[in-house]
């Protein structure tokens, strides 16, 4: 199972704050996200490492997608 966590307004776009997916095979992150998911100003961490929408995820991946906040 791959675990995806969405922070801030990205949870609205994804339709959930967390998703657990069972993947048949490794795939590009963007394939499991809505087509409206923003390409810019998003931080993606896959297993604590910086990734992007074209990073490959697999079962056991832990993914956090968060907006590029700028801290008040």
């Amino acid at each position: 199972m791959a675990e995806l966590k969405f922070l801030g307004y990205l949870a609205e776009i994804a339709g959930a704050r967390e998703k657990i997916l069972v993947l048949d095979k490794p795939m590009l992150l963007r394939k499991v996200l809505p087509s409206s998911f923003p390409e810019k100003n998003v931080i993606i961490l896959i297993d604590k490492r910086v990734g992007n929408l074209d990073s490959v995820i697999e079962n056991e991946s832990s993914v956090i997608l968060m907006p590029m906040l700028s801290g008040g």
Partner: protein
Amino acid sequence: MKGYAGKWLRVDLSTGKISKEEIPDAMKRDFLGGRGFAVKLLWDEVKHIDPLSEKNKLIFSTGPFTGQALPSSGKMVIASKSPLTGGYGDGNIGTMASIHLRKAGYDVLVLEGKSEKPCYLLVEDENVKFVDASELWGKNTFEAQDILEKRHGRNSGILIIGPGGENLVRFSTVMSQKGRAGGRPGLGAVMGSKNLKAVVIKGTGSIPNFDDEKLKEFGKKGYEEIKGKESYEFWMRQGTMQAFEWCNENSCLPTYNFKEGVFEFSKELDGYVLEKLHIDRKGCPMCNMQCGHVIKDAGDQRAELDYENVGMLGPNIGLRSLPQIALLNRMADEWGLDTISLGSCIGFLMEASERGLIPEKVGWGDFEAARKLIIDIGRGEGLGKLVSQGTRNASETLGKGSHRWAMHVKGLEISAYNCHGCPGMALSFGTSPIGASHKDAWIIAWEISTDRFSYGKEKVEKLIEFQRIRGGFFESATVCRLPWVEVSFGLHWYPEYLEAITGNRMGWEDLYKIGDRIYNLIRAYWKREIPQFGRTWDYPPDRWFEEPLSQGKMKGVKLDREKYDQMLSWYYELRGWDKNGIPTKETLDDLGLKEVSKEIIG
């Protein structure tokens, strides 16, 4: 130059003398407004004095953006020599007073001297007078605001201090509109030291711009662009509180006096909990993305929350109830105390108690104890007296190694971001021109999105870029940074706006140079006022270097002192400062600050 009222109003509270002086065009060109005007005035006029003496000056400074029909333009900067840090101190505030000051015909209000008796200043266009404030002295900022609104009209611009400022608490602020606050480094105490309870401003004029039609059109487009941003709707629901979950997830939430970066009860306090409790919204004038969320507090009264006060009065003191935090925040606003420093001071006392360094029992998360402490701090009594001059002073009094976990830089308490695992943000706190403030540069997201644990030069370059935009441009324009930083409003608008206001075409490189001039003058001010000032003042507390996080995904992480030191050297090099962090003659001369270099270098 168009877009300015063109005058500053100078009021001597000792003699009653009132003067109105033209602002030279060169000052507008070189310093723009707001923070730029303030530091220039302080450099020229406030030298080697006790910040709480009548020789200090309190400056309320607007810029060419203030009060324009532009996004989030209701700001002014309040500045003075700080009684908390001993150096340059300022803070911005969104208030109707900014707009009224400009409408009354002034860009800047300079207050000097000291009134014999408590008074308030009434500015009605060209008419300026002192009014007895004996019956207001001692009242909290909400009560006094109500009285002044009743007397002078609800839409008057009112700047006010609470008992904290009257009692010279070193982190007291200037308040407005029951919740807006400015001047973290004790500028409420400066106002209190002058026996000045309030400033009431009513202006009826207008300031012609270079191209009012274009400005109106651009302003309208700007407001529309903000409302159309994909993050706007969520921002309106959670505001800055969206950062709470974000910071906890990234181990940078201030927790237990910055010992930890995650809070075990975070889900009881985050933006989603706020949404359920939300009953109203508050904010600054001219803003269509107001950030204050009102809830019913634990005393069943309306109270306003945002990320900074929840972070510092919540996890930082171990408190896990939003209504209780809201009540503490309301008390801070009523007393006129800075919520960031207040949360840090209470956290300091809780840790001192836990370590057995003080006899009083003040446990983490003890709401009643925190409530009582606010009153004691505001009065400067009991245990509150120990911290009423800030954590630096408290640690010097307490001793026993407490300076290692007194969470400040240059005497100003660190705002709500734990930096055990954020070296770039640690440097941002270290080099902020007023002490540990986040307003000049917030780089955490950028460092996480690139290489979080890097101490590379590229991080230092990015930090300086942020400082130029946020601390240089926004603080002198004077306009709120949140449209850009929070919903990605286009930066390209600002030079367009400036041209429509003043008629001067300036690109970002020109604006960066103004920002650099301001930063260097502030740095020189610190050096002139504090001869021993230098490199050692630019380090965050030992805790972040010596005590690794013990909880969460970043368990074991701490800052590396040698690598931080290297970043700091790069920072000085890029700024054109010497190894001790003092601007060089060449740097100052290049910025047109030859007189300054003569004074601090010779």
